[in-house]
């Protein structure tokens, strides 16, 4: 073990440090004072790591709210289902509705991606989709990456 030698410190506080601190506090204070009233947008992800736009729940929620019609319009504000529209919770073990059982059997890894995109001929029949938009096509044109973001989020809903 090395000998303990404390690190020496010069006492005192330079004046410029006080000036800099006051200046920064003033700038921040002016910003806060001029942004008192308004409404925040829906949460869009975490500044520190939601960078890719495709990894965070915030990014998924942003997509869910952004597409037209929004997922919550039909499936309810908590995506727990409403009226004839099924719940999007508990999809970890497969679909909860009969018209998707065969799709899940044929594509166990990515049946949700195919269903949300709706551009695959196997699931593009309007009668089978029962009003579900094909989000991979116009006007939303979600990319496979964006759909994967939504799928990952939906799989977390227990």
């Amino acid at each position, binding site marked *: 073990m090395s*000998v*303990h*030698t*404390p*690190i*020496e*410190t*010069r*006492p*005192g*506080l*330079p004046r410029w*440090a006080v000036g*800099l*601190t006051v200046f*920064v*506090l003033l*700038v*921040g204070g002016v*910003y*806060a004072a001029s*942004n*008192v009233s308004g409404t*925040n*947008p*829906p*949460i*869009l*992800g*975490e*500044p*520190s*790591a*939601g*960078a*890719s*736009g*495709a*990894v*965070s*729940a*915030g*990014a998924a*929620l*942003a997509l869910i709210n952004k597409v037209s019609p929004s997922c919550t319009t039909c499936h309810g504000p*908590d*995506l727990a289902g409403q009226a004839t529209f099924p719940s999007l919770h508990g999809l*970890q073990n*497969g679909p909860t509705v009969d018209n998707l059982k065969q799709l899940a059997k044929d594509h*166990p*890894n*990515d049946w949700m991606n195919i269903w949300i995109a709706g551009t695959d001929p196997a699931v593009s029949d309007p009668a089978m989709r029962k009003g579900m938009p094909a989000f991979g096509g116009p006007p939303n*044109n979600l*990319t496979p990456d*964006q759909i*994967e973001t939504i799928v*990952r*989020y939906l799989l*977390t*809903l227990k």
Partner: protein
Amino acid sequence: MTRKLRPYDEPPKARRSLLPTAPDSAATLFLAVAILWLVAATGIGALAQMQRAFPDLLKASLQVPLGPGITLLVTPATTTPAFVDALIFGWLSNAAFAAVCFITPRLTGTRLATDRMATFSLLAWNAAIAGGVALLYVKGASGTAALAEFPLPVKGLALVGLLGVNAVFWRTALMARGDRYISLFYFGIALLALLGLMALSTVPAVISLGATNDQVLYAFYARAVATYWVLGASLATLYYLVPRVARNPLYSGGLAWLGFVGWLGFAGLSAIGALVDPSVPYAVTSLGTAGTLWLLAPTFLAVANLLGTIRGRWSLILSTGTLSFSVVSLAFIAATPLLESVGALRSVQAWTAGTTWPMGVLVFSALGGATFAYYAFADHALPRALHRAWSESILSDVVLWATFVGTALAGFAMLAGGLVAGSLISQGAAPDEVADAIRWIQLASAAGLGLASLGALALLVNAFLMYTAAPLIELSVPSSIPTSATTSAAAGQ
């Protein structure tokens, strides 16, 4: 009478144990594991950026025959969080724990309390992080909130490891007598903050708060991890290294305390700025954004204090070593809050949300500021822990320049990509058009992370060569050069 020594009479040759002997064994182990994590993290990061540039070519989905529905996915949606988690929890956290174990005894003049506890913490923490990162690739096994994706059992194991490190630190720090140096305060708050935040991130798994409240909580958590843990532990390490290596007293004790108090308050306030949701009052979010602006002050004060400490020793930064790594770290640390402040403004946030801008800021913060602080720490600590000298090869230069150029390239490319994508999205461009427009920028960021990975690999090889082939040396703790009567010998005053 003399007797010829027969072979079987010879005393056994001294064998080097695989693990270095105490008191620095815990620090060495944490650092060795951290370097492995850095190689992995930068490699995964480069892969993630390549996947973003060529999503169709580099996407893998693998059905594992372990049970029904177990699918491994290697897509940007899994590799990007794996990169961030491996970087923050794998590399930076292990390196910070190593710094805690190495620096605390030297500042308190006591041995590290409970070496076994430190080793146990290392096992628990790394088992949790490795398991958590692996589960990110299993479809449906992890959450999607940034830095909080791990399932509850994994977080529980990580909390056990974190409790152990906290116990080791506080027992050692509280045993000290007399004045305590500023690094100990930064370490103490940073460790407690990470423990509290990690516990906070488990709340949504235990109590149902609703989907939106969960995301609000996670947003606070992720931002606070960056401000309290990543920034705090880096500054603690640099406050120890720079005066030690420059052999100057710390430039100003008052500056150090003003910076510390500012960081303590504004780091938390800045995290409130991440609560961007209609459920949070607008004025509260604005105050949080102001907190991000205010965080500029303590960060700049700390950087200025440490640069002032190098006065008269500037020639030391011309050669690759602890001080040159520290100066690069300070440059990135100074740049980060500027970028964060700009990005926190509502108009900019609306422009860059969902783009690569925040990831660019993260690269500057974590792969720039914090990583170079721990490079400086490794450069200083490994020779003292292993009693061996660094090799005279070019590997140290490769570590410095490959990581510096790679981090700058990746960071600037991601910031530029974010601005371009934000501009195109605001003009109503389709996702495919945006992807095409920023493909070359994404390739540049992949190349940058690849270079950083090369730097990490060079550090790993250099450390391995030191352990296996370098001659034994003994380094003493440098004493400060006598200075004027105004110098206070009591650190931290």
